[in-house]
């Protein structure tokens, strides 16, 4: 388990999943890949298929229709995998908390490893969040 995790951290491939967001967080994730921020330098690559992914980046307020797909996709990710909730909506649903179509927050549905707050979080914040997460996992491996 820990060897797999260690291998994963060298070059984490991320899969990006929107569960009813306003698109801003998604755009900022894509922004991280473009020349100014360019996180591909660190080996972080946006994967096309969920089967290739090590890290799930989840945005949005979990609406009823997409939550079913979210559960199904989470079952398909090769484990171990890390889940990062990006943006206010995926943390607490933000201002959509009383919406009839957003019944549950993300961390009540699947386990979440890191939260990156902001509406939307800046690309710098997203990079910092991912780096912190990697550091944390590395530490926990060392302790074992």
């Amino acid at each position, binding site marked *: 388990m820990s060897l797999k995790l260690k291998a994963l951290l060298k070059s984490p491939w991320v899969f990006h999943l929107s569960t009813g967001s306003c698109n801003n967080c998604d755009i900022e994730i894509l922004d991280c890949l473009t020349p100014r921020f360019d996180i591909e330098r660190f080996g972080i690559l946006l994967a096309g298929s969920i089967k290739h992914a090590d890290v799930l980046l989840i945005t949005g307020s979990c609406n*009823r*229709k997409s939550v*079913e797909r979210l559960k199904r996709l989470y079952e398909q990710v090769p484990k171990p995998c890390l889940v990062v909730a990006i943006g206010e909506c995926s943390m*607490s649903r933000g201002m959509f*908390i*009383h919406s*009839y*179509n957003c*019944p*549950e*927050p993300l961390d*009540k549905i699947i386990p979440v490893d890191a939260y990156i707050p902001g509406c939307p979080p800046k690309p710098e914040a997203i990079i910092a969040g991912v780096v912190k997460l990697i550091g944390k996992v590395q530490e926990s491996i060392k302790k074992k």
Partner: protein
Amino acid sequence: MTKTSIIKDLCERFSSDIIDVFDKSSKRVYMEIKPESIVKVAKYIFKDLGARFNIASGLDARDHMEILYHFTFEEINLIISLRVKLEKSKKLEIDSLANTFEAANWIEREIHELLGINFKGHPDLRKLLLPDEWPEGVYPLRRDYKEWDKKAIRDRGV
């Protein structure tokens, strides 16, 4: 084509269908018409006068349902809104515009699922926005909508 000529033309042509004309400002006119004449009037405005269909907006006004059909005349900067009132005591239904012009197709599906108004003759009244497991007969935009999902969490968990 001017605003006054359009209103005059509509009032003469559909004198028995128009109930009330509310001239709000130089750019906005609200016209209340009988529900059964909506296709006739809308078709004339869209096809013959060349207006663009903006959207329809449904509204639950406690004692009746209201649908507003907004049309824009871009050349003269005018929006005409056709108001239709449906009595709640009767069956909530109105003729569909989707066969007259495609633009009305999706919004009628939306009003159908969110407000529960039936559109007669609509080619495809499936759900548009809500999930398939949404309970029948629950319409979120109505005044009497109540939370039906017992599992829903509405606090921030702190």
